[in-house]
């Protein structure tokens, strides 16, 4: 194959295409994503995503950071599940070093994971409602999410970007009221779930907007690598908590939510059910959380990973996050790669939205739950 054929510019635009640029600043792209949409009337002919508006080169930056310093960069990828991102790196480092973290730490991490997941899904619910024009959902979802963030703030001192994990454990012990407040939250949120159901889940307009829109079958989901709730809405069993359990998850009883319709509504239902499932996990974990055991394992002040390659997968609120670390024995990672869930999830958008109309594009884009900094990294 010659050089020229590889590098040829692919011409995607016809002269008389009606191109509408959605983004980089657009209310429904949730960040600086630019969708170049070709329309005929209101029907979407094709759509090209343009990314890279907030690419910060985290992978390059991480090459000159120690393993403890990498943590704070991962916060800034998928900022809505920053705790889970932290955990991915920590778990990779711990596995490489063969460190056994105390059980209490594993419990706390799992509790925080689930709280993060609920907070993230809450925000998605609010934003999805707003994408579809139900403006009140935004405030109800945010109201309930703030409660979780207050629990976070009490323990970590920050609401969004915690950097609370560290290789070997946690930076601090959790706040003494942590258990009490978590249980209070579980009770509170269970009471608010009927509102969610009445306001959006059962609404006939919402059904019309989402059922049968953006249908993705299982094969397509696997082929595109669409993971997380979006993949599980298509029947792709991809919950890392089940497939490759990490931390305490092999001791927790929970269901993997699977829907087989593969449309926007199935993706919505998966997330709604996952919130309930997360509440169940929280109830199990908080009650059994050991009081003793400290909050960190004994670690050397300078962490040097033995030479080799390590891959750690965790389930964030949006799908499978993979951390691939190549170490050459130094205190810096030689190469670190984040397989971010949103990067794979984004590119299915073109196929799903083809043939729909603009409103469908917005609904599908919302149902995939994209976080742009995670795509760009």
């Amino acid at each position, binding site marked *: 194959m010659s050089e020229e054929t590889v590098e040829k510019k692919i011409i995607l635009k016809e002269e008389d295409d009606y191109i509408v640029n959605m983004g980089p600043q657009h209310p429904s792209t949730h960040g600086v994503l630019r969708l170049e949409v070709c329309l005929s009337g209101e029907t979407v002919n094709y759509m090209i995503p343009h990314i890279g508006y907030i690419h910060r080169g985290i992978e390059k930056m991480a090459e000159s950071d120690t393993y403890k310093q990498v943590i704070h960069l991962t916060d800034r990828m998928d900022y809505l599940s920053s705790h889970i991102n932290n955990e991915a790196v920590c778990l990779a480092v711990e596995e490489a070093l063969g460190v056994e973290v105390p059980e209490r730490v594993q419990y706390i991490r799992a509790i925080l994971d689930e709280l993060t997941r609920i907070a993230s899904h809450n925000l998605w619910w609010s934003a999805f409602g707003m994408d579809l*024009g139900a403006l*009140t959902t935004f405030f109800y979802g945010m109201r309930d999410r703030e409660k979780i963030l207050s629990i976070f703030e009490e323990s970590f001192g920050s609401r969004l970007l915690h950097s609370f994990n560290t290789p070997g454990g946690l930076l601090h012990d959790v706040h003494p009221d942590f258990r009490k407040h978590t249980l209070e939250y579980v009770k509170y949120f269970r009471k608010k779930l009927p509102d969610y159901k009445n306001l959006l889940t059962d*609404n006939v*307009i919402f059904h019309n907007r989402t059922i049968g829109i953006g249908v993705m079958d299982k094969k397509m989901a696997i082929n595109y690598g669409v993971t997380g709730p979006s993949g599980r809405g298509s029947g792709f069993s991809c919950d890392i908590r089940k497939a490759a359990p990490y931390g305490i998850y092999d001791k927790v009883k929970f269901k993997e939510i699977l829907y087989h319709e593969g449309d926007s509504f199935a993706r919505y239902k998966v997330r709604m059910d996952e919130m309930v499932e997360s509440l169940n996990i929280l109830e199990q974990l908080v009650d059994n959380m050991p009081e003793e055991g400290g909050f960190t394992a004994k670690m050397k002040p300078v962490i040097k990973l033995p030479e080799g390659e390590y891959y750690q997968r965790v389930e964030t609120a949006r799908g499978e996050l993979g951390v691939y670390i190549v170490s050459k024995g130094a205190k810096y990672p030689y190469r670190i790669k984040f397989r971010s869930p949103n990067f794979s999830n984004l590119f299915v958008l073109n196929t799903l939205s083809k043939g729909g109309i603009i409103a469908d594009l*917005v609904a599908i884009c919302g149902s995939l739950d994209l976080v742009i900094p995670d795509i760009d990294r």
Partner: protein
Amino acid sequence: MILDIYSFSTLTSSIDNSLHNMMSPWMATLTEFVLVGIVFLLFYALLGLFLVYLERKVCAVIQNRIGPNRVGRWGIFQTFADFIKLLMKELITIKHADKFLFNLAPFIVIIASFMAMAALPFAKGLQAIDFNIGIFYVIAVSSLGVVGILIAGWSSNSKYSLIGAMRSGAQIISYELSVGLSLLAIVIFSGSMQLSTIVESQADGWWIFKGHIPAFIAFVLYLITATAEINRGPFDLAEAESELTAGFHTEYSGIKFAFFFLAEYMNMFIVSAIAATLFLGGWMPFHIGGWEGFNQIMDYIPSILWFFGKTFVVIYIIMWFKWTFPRLRIDQMLNLEWKYLLPLNLMNTVIISFVVLMGLYFK
């Protein structure tokens, strides 16, 4: 019996008489035109600002917030501050826009809503023109606004605006039918198109009660179609901010944007006022047949309060829609009209004709 102390006819006729005594008849008429114009302009602006404030408060309460609370007590001057801000903003001229049409569009929109106000009976004896085809006039005039929206979308030379305007055109033209048909229900009941006659016919009970089930259905259908007619609530496809950023007024700024904004809220007032007039008795107090004492107490409440009270109830319901429902898609919205609302309306019209013929409604 309705008390005459709150009637405005003595006031208006005395002004009319004194003007006629002072000057020649056509000068008097001209002065009256100007006076009515000034009163309406003031009323229009103040009510528009108040409605914007009301909307913000209502949605804030629904959403567990406080809403505007900084400018003045409870933030009542917030919208005035916003209006002053809009007045002082730069009018951005768009490159390649059709300048004449671009500047014309806001005026068409606002004139359409202004004209519709002329026929509204605000209180006993307070009505600018009492047409004998009042309803017909209101329907005809209020649908002029879509021309302005189409012009705005076309002339601003923006793709978002154009899509928004086209959506709006498709939407309003189809929903006109249902609005007309649901108002026809009351025309059949009362046997008149004159708004004052319709109000008088509800002296002993409002049509929504007298006409029982069919009138109630007509009222619900009217609420839905009217919400669509004024581009609000779940039918705000023309602006659809999550899809088209701001739809047909994306490119407008400053006072021109304020015109669109004001016209939208005044349209909401007008459709609510029509609903109040036709279904809820207009300025007629709430009467129950046979309860003389109760009826007399009701009569002591001024008719203008009755009118505005009823109108704001309807306005609240329309706001309630907006802050609850997700937006429809354009094809679903046309489906809703042609497959559900129009057949139901036609059926309802037939039922009402039958009911009226057989005299099955409360008289």
